[in-house]
């Protein structure tokens, strides 16, 4: 028996048959308890029995992301320690100055990060700014930061990744022509 299935069975035992049926129909359409489903059960278990019955009755138990920020309730409560009922926006600024223009995009650091954040982490693509190669200039970087500062609130998380050539105490942005050290040498 997987730990997920056991979590579900343990949880079922606390409710009457009608509620059990509702839970089974919601959580087991494919016959398995996924990790996400098990985590939601663990999340719900933290509430009082009366609250849980109400959640099953009004079907809010089946919503894995109450605040709709792309991070599931369990993750926010138990792992990330961010509020599960407050929208936490996630933004990223990915700078990859050294990417040659003819390099396939998927091979750049910024693209690996972009794919991870957008595909795996479900960060809205409009929240991820990616500046690579000749676009990774100081001007564009400052514009992107200004853009972020206007969007980001105190509840949000921001990730800035700088990838490229460095020197003591400075980072070499691209000059817009594919050269990524000239501006640091000024």
């Amino acid at each position: 028996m997987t730990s997920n299935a056991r979590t579900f069975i343990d949880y079922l035992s606390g409710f009457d048959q009608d509620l059990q049926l509702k839970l089974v129909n919601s959580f087991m359409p494919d016959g398995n308890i996924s990790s996400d489903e098990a985590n939601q059960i663990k999340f719900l278990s933290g509430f009082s029995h009366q609250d849980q019955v109400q959640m099953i009755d009004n079907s809010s138990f089946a919503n894995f992301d109450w605040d709709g920020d792309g991070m599931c309730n369990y993750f926010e409560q138990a792992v990330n320690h961010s509020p599960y009922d407050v929208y936490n926006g996630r933004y990223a600024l990915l700078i990859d100055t050294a990417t040659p223009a003819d390099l396939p995009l998927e091979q750049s650091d910024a693209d690996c990060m972009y794919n991870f954040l957008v595909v795996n982490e479900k960060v809205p693509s409009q929240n991820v700014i990616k500046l690579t190669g000749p676009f990774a200039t100081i001007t564009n970087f400052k514009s992107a930061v200004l853009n972020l500062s206007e969007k980001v609130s105190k509840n949000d998380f921001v990730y800035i990744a700088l990838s490229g050539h460095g020197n003591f105490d400075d980072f070499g942005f691209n000059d817009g022509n594919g050269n990524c050290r000239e501006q640091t040498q000024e």
Partner: protein
Amino acid sequence: MTYEEINQTVDIIKPSELLITVFACEAGTALPFLSQGSSPRVFADIGAHWFYFASTNFNRFGYNLKPGELDLDKNGYVSVQESINTANEFQIESANVTYGDLNNLASNIYFGDFEIDTSQPKPYVSPYDGGHIWLCVGEMSANTVGCGFSRFSLMSPGPELTFYLGETVNMTLYNVGALPQSWEIRTQPNINGELLFNSTISSGGFISQWQWSSVSFNASKVGKFYYICPTPNQPENVIWGQVEVIDLKMPYEQFVLLPVVSGNATTTYSDHYQVSVVLQNIGTATATIDPSKVLFDGKLASDYGVYAPTPNTDNLLRVKPGESLTLQFSFKNDGNSPWRPGGPTFEALGKVDIIIQTEAGTQFWCQACLY
């Protein structure tokens, strides 16, 4: 652009947390500037030359991440600190990852809720594969030492650990406090108990602050034990937590059968319907069901009646844990469902309650939907 200028630029952003990583030569020189700001900062410099945190780990996230590679505390998620800790194992040059200010790397900062391996058990349960458990230990207060899966989740007693009989356990203790620490499993919650499994970490010595040490042992005895710290300068051998070693061959819960596939009858009018219901044993014991006790008459939600013929076999069917059983049967109108005008056909739409009785007399109930 100097890192000081970059810091002044990004400091206009006022988020809950700002994470910055730099992959570049001499990136460590960015630390004094980028690790501090008007909002909480997490900074990771990527170290020297072409070994770096971001590409190594993001490539692995995207392409070839393996269970347990990064998720040191086995909570199913990868924090920033875990990413950087683990990066050492995948370096492609001899240079080491530069942590910068380790205290500034929050272990509870995550990129999101992407789980690296959805089949992994709960954090305190061993992952079967000899995976690595990473425990942090340190002072929670002046008189209390705790431990946890991250330095921000210390508790006393610490989290319960579950291993499986015969399993090789790899344990790392990371001292995030000021007092020297060690770790071992005993039969009692003090040093008078028998030492088990040669499980002592840092035998003969203790782990200093911000240092870690590992031990590998075989969980060769079933039972409930304790892990403790035998550190002499702590108050009365603080009990850190319980360890349970279980034998997977010992069934600890009865079988459970749940329907995993609903009936395949359609709403097309017919004079009879073929229905299959797949039941999966998600328990630990073998389920034995008597098909003659399978009942599938009545209780259709739309008041349609069904006629249950003799099941297709009289043999007992055994379902081992994890296996599935398919019940196939047909039903006809028992006269309670309305016949379709002009022909001997009727419509089946609703739910069938199925009651299964085992040879031990246990009854349980499940339901199949007909759409």
